[in-house]
């Protein structure tokens, strides 16, 4: 049983409290969904329940948190971990061992349980999560969905009563999300308490007993998810073609084709979304469209250059990788925007870009000190400042809440109005619907190409 009573918390060095006057009661066996925009305090709330606040994060608090009758301060983290388990967003950083069965046992080893106990708990967890056949496999060879399953297994083996999930399916595609649904259902059936924080929660709503909305550190009334009205894109009249591919095939290894006979034409001013599960070839296709990879077979013309090399396209085609943090290099936000044009010897109107990105107030801040959503926008703006003719984005929706995504797409609409072309890949159906044209991919082929109206 979890009871939170008039609880407020402020991180060290922060000006504003992250949580304000939270009152919450969760019964054993309940499944609760916590939703809200980025920065609303969802993760902080979870940290108060698993002991990370106050054991790892200091800061000041008032009010009380009670887990089965004790406060997190009274017990060491190791004890709390026996009652409350946490699964984070990124499975890569939750795997410690090189073999699946060793990783599942890691948590139990840390609890200093006797060997026989560890072995029985480990085996039970492997069976429950469907990993028994893979138990000898090397962890780095697992796919994303299985990695997250492994992360859940190693927590399950510790046999907590409460499971906290902090945006666990952000990086996952449709298949993996269906699997995750089964996992949550399985936990519920075993009587575990489940607390789930997620942006894309629609798939899990049927399992949830209750929904808690958070806004600015407080529990808010049931406001509908921020569906701001955005005009959907009219299909662009196909003018000149900027990207044209015929019978393109590609494989990293000569034997297996990741892309098979792709025929596509993309016109100037279009916004095209590529959808499909992981492994469908979306990212590879985008890389070929930006000159990062060359096709093994077939013809490709980008901006009227036949089979262009990367050097010809720098400055004319912008490519955005999934992680904005790998694309921010300067010391301040305004220098970041000026960086690309500077390297190319072009002049640019930094003021204007700061304005449309909404980052004027942060112009002198270091790019890494602004929020995740702002960093994503900054990365896109820095490419836009180079005034490329095409912008290609790989999974730009990862980790973004709806508000930021809508802001981003507004920027991209603006850009296409000025003559640019946008191509992006996503597994988020809702995000894809904001593009003018949606192409679905499966196993290296395009299976559907429709204009969304």
């Amino acid at each position, binding site marked *: 049983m979890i009871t939170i009573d008039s609880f407020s918390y402020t991180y060290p060095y922060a000006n504003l409290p992250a949580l304000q006057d939270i009152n919450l009661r969760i019964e054993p066996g309940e499944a609760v969904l916590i939703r809200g925009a980025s920065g609303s305090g969802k993760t902080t709330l979870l940290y108060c329940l698993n002991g990370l606040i106050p054991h790892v994060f200091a800061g000041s608090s008032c009010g009380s948190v009670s887990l089965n009758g004790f406060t997190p301060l009274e017990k060491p983290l190791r004890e709390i971990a026996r009652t409350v388990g946490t699964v984070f967003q990124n499975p890569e950083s939750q795997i410690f061992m090189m073999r699946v069965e060793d990783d599942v046992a890691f948590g139990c080893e840390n609890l200093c349980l006797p060997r026989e106990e560890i072995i029985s708990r480990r085996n039970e967890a492997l069976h429950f999560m469907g990993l028994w056949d893979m138990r000898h496999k090397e962890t780095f060879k697992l796919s994303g969905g299985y990695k997250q399953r492994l992360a859940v297994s190693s927590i399950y083996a510790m046999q907590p009563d409460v499971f906290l999930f902090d945006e666990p399916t952000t990086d996952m595609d449709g298949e993996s999300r269906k699997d995750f649904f089964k996992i949550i259902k399985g936990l519920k059936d075993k009587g575990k308490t489940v607390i789930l924080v997620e942006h894309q929660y629609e798939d899990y709503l049927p399992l949830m007993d209750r929904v808690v909305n958070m806004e600015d550190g407080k529990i808010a009334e049931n406001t509908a998810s921020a569906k701001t009205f955005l005009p959907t894109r009219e299909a662009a009249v196909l003018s000149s073609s900027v990207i044209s591919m015929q019978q393109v095939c590609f494989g990293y290894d000569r034997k297996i084709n990741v892309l098979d006979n792709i025929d596509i034409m993309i016109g100037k001013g279009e916004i095209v979304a590529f959808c499909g599960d992981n492994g469908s070839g979306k990212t590879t296709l985008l890389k070929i469209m930006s000159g990062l990879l060359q096709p093994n077979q077939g013809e490709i013309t980008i901006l009227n250059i036949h089979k262009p090399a990367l050097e010809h396209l720098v400055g004319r085609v912008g490519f955005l990788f999934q992680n904005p943090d790998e694309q921010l290099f300067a010391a301040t936000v305004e220098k970041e925007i000026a960086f690309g044009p500077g390297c190319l010897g072009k002049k640019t109107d930094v003021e204007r870009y700061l304005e449309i990105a909404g980052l004027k107030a942060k112009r002198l801040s*270091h790019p890494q000190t602004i929020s995740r959503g702002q960093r994503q926008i900054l990365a896109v703006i820095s490419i836009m400042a180079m005034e490329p003719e095409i912008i290609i984005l790989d999974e730009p929706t990862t980790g973004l809440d709806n508000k930021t995504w809508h802001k981003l797409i507004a920027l991209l609409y603006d850009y296409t109005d000025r003559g640019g072309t946008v191509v992006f890949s996503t597994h988020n159906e809702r995000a894809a619907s904001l593009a003018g044209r949606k192409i679905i991919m499966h196993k290296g082929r395009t299976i559907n190409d429709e204009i969304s109206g």
Partner: protein
Amino acid sequence: MNLYIGSVIFIAILGGIVFHLLWTRKAIPSFSTMDLTTIALFCSLLYITILPFKFGLSRIPIIQTFFFAIPYTATLFIGICLIPRAGTTTLIICGHSLLSQVISSGIKPLWWPYALLASFALELYFIITGNYLSTRKNALGAGFLRGFTVYIYFYCFSAPYIWHQFYAPWYIFIQTVQGIVGSIIGAFIGIYLSKPIINAVRYGGI
């Protein structure tokens, strides 16, 4: 052979002195889990920043020392600036040494005293100056010390007594000077680059 064993004993004594000094000043550090993972990060980083230099241009023996020393020292010193405590240097240097042994070059007990010497010398320097790379003068000294100890130890102790290979004094001199200059340049690059990083850590959501 006696000289090598003597040097191993010397390194052990040095380690003892470092430990004793920390004990008497009640400054035995404790590392949080976050510190340990950050140190692990730096061990991997050291491994990666040296990787491009294992092949190609820098294999020319006369000038390779220079090229190796710069990225190694720069990365090491950034790590020390981020966790400015006793023990960081030892954990990063020895951790990196063990890491590259476990995954590629193989377990080489003969290289362990070498890593320990570099660590203890720097730890002692930091304890005595009371300063973990917060000033340029400190970095200059640390860079100099690292370059000096590592290369002199290699050419005057490891090479002759383990591998039984001898080098002329003038050659040792050139290599050591290169090592020192490279380490000092690396040291300055390190503290310069650490500033934006520390800034981001302090004020950003890391």
